C-alpha cells in the first residue's frame, strides 16, 4: 500500500442553478462527442462538463486535489474513457456519486482513479454538502467526514478496486497479480 486511502479535499457539489442535485449526468455532458478524436490525456481536462449547463467553466475553477460530488447514475451513456480521464487531467482527487453508470465505474476503477458510490449523499444527507467545503473520505471504510462530523458512509472499495488503485492501473495490477 502506497497510495493514500484517506483523501481530503475541497468539494464541488454538482447541483443545478436552483441548488438541486444533478442526476443522470451522461458522458456527453461530461465530455462531448465532438472531442473524441483526442487521445492525449493532458488535452482532455479543458472539455470537462463542456456540455453541462452552468458548469462549463469548471475546468478553469477546479484545483488539483479537489473532490467532485454528484447525484445518481453519474456517467451513464457511452463507454468513452475520456469522460473519466478529463477529471484525471484536471487533478481531481476523488469522485463521489450516489451511483455510477456501470461502464463509467469500470473505466474509473481500471485507470486507478478513485471513485466511490455513496447512495443518498446529496438527496438524503442530513449535513448538506456545499461547494467549497472540505471533506475527508476513508476509501477502506467508506466514511465521509466534514471536520469531526461523519456526514455519510459510502460503499468501501472492493478488493479488486483497491488492488488496481494501489497498483496504478489495470495493466500494472495484472502484472503484479498474475491474472
Amino acid at each position: 500500500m502506497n497510495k493514500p486511502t484517506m483523501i481530503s479535499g475541497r468539494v464541488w457539489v454538482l447541483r443545478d442553478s436552483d441548488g438541486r442535485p444533478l442526476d443522470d449526468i451522461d458522458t456527453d455532458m461530461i465530455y462531448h462527442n465532438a472531442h473524441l478524436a483526442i487521445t492525449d490525456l493532458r488535452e482532455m481536462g479543458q472539455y470537462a462538463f463542456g456540455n453541462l449547463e452552468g458548469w462549463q467553466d469548471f475546468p478553469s475553477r477546479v484545483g488539483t486535489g479537489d473532490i467532485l460530488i454528484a447525484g445518481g447514475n453519474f456517467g451513464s451513456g457511452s463507454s468513452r474513457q475520456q469522460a473519466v480521464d478529463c477529471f484525471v487531467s484536471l487533478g481531481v482527487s476523488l469522485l463521489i456519486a450516489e451511483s455510477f453508470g456501470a461502464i463509467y465505474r469500470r473505466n474509473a476503477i481500471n485507470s486507478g482513479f478513485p471513485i466511490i458510490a455513496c447512495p443518498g449523499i446529496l438527496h438524503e444527507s442530513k449535513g448538506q454538502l456545499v461547494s467549497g467545503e472540505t471533506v475527508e473520505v476513508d476509501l477502506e471504510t467508506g466514511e465521509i467526514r466534514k471536520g469531526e462530523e461523519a456526514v455519510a458512509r459510502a460503499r468501501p472499495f472492493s478488493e479488486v478496486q483497491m488492488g488496481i488503485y494501489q497498483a496504478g492501473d489495470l495493466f500494472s495490477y495484472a502484472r503484479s497479480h498474475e491474472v
Partner: protein
Amino acid sequence: MGQTIIEKIFAARTSDPVEPGRIIWLELDARTARDFGGANVVKHLEREYADDPVADPAKTFFTFDCVVPANTIPYANNQQICRDFARKHDVRLYDVDMGIGSHVVIEKGLVVPGTTLVGTDSHLNILGAVGAFGQGMGDQDIAFTFKTGKTWFEVPPTLRVTVKGRLEPPLTPKDLNLAILGQIGSTGGLGYSMEFYGEVIEEMGIAGRITLASQATEMGAVIAMLPPNRDVLDYCRERSGREIEPILADDNAEYVKNLEIDITNLKPMVSRPGAPHDVVEAGAVKGVRVDSVFFGSCTNGRLEDLEVAASILRGKRVAPHVMAKVVPATREVYGDLLKKGLLDVFYEAGVIVSNPGCGGCASGQIGMTGKGEVQVSTSNRNFRGKQGAGDTYLAGPAVAAVSALAGEITSP
C-alpha cells in the same frame, strides 16, 4: 440453486464461483474496438506491451462505425492507427463501409447464443438480443482484453421481466421498449442483468430483439438477455456455421426482483427531449412541429425497422419543411433496401439515405440539430446536446414516419 442466463454463460467461462456481487475473471470469445476508442486502445497496447502479439488475432476485431468515412484529419489519423495495428497483428478489421459493429458481429456470426464479447461501444449489450453476453467498456479495459483475452467482471444480480400482452401494428418493439423505460426509469435496471419473458418476446424476431436489448443501457442495466427462440438459433447457426446450444435460465434460478409489464393497452410512445426515460404517449405531444426525422441507429436500423417506415412513406412525400434521413445499420441492410426497392421508396418520399453506420448519433455524421430544431429520432439517446442544440424526441419507425409526413408529431 439454479442459475440465470448470465450466470450460466459466466460459469462456463471462469474458474471463479459465480454469484451475484462476486468479481470473476471472465474468458472472452471475442473483443472489438471501434473507431471511437480504437486509437486509444492501440496507444495503451503499444505503451504497455510494445509489439507483443495479441492473445488471439482470430478473436480480435476492429469495427469502424462512428465517423465513416472519417471527416476530419484527427479521426482519419485515428482510424489509420487502427488499420496499421490490425495489419501488423493480423487482426480482422471491418472498415468504414460495414456499418454498426454490434450488428456486424451478429451478421457475421462472430457472436452466437451463450458466447461473450466486449468492445468500446456502450450498446454492445445489444448482444443480449441473441442470448449472448456483450458489454461496452473503455479503452483501457479493451486494450487489456486484446492482450489477455479476459477481463474482470462483477456478476450482476438478475431482474426478471415478464411482459404481458402482444404487439399489434402500428405498435413496434420500440414502443414496448419505451414503455418499459418510462415505467422503470433510467436507474430501474441499474447494475442488473435483465431477462425478458412473455409471449411477445417469444414471438419476436431478431430485429425486434435488438431494439429491445439496445436500450438496456438507458435503463441502467448491464444487459437485457432474451432467451433465444428458434428463429434466433437458426439465424446464428447459419451465420456462424456452428452448432449452437442455447443457454437458458434454470427453472429454479434466483432473481433479485420479478417485474411484470402489462402492454395490453399500449399506445405508440415517444420520449421527450432531454431524457430517454421521459416517456409519454405520442398522442400527448401531438401537433408539435417537426423539422427533421431520423430513421436508423443500433436500435432501429434493421431492415424490418426501415420496412415499417417505408410502408408508411410509400407513394407519399414527407412534409415540405421536414428533412428526413435514413441510415441503415449495416451494409447488408443497405443492400437489402436496394434489392427490395426501398431505396426508391425513400428517394421518392424525399428522404436522404446515407451509408451505414452510427450516423444520427455519433459525431454528426449525417448532420446535427440546430437551436430550436425539433427532431424525431428512432435512436436511443436524446440527452441534451448529444446530437446538436435542438430538441430530440425518441420514437419508433411508425411514429417517426407518420410524423415526417404530417410535419408534426403524430400518433399512427
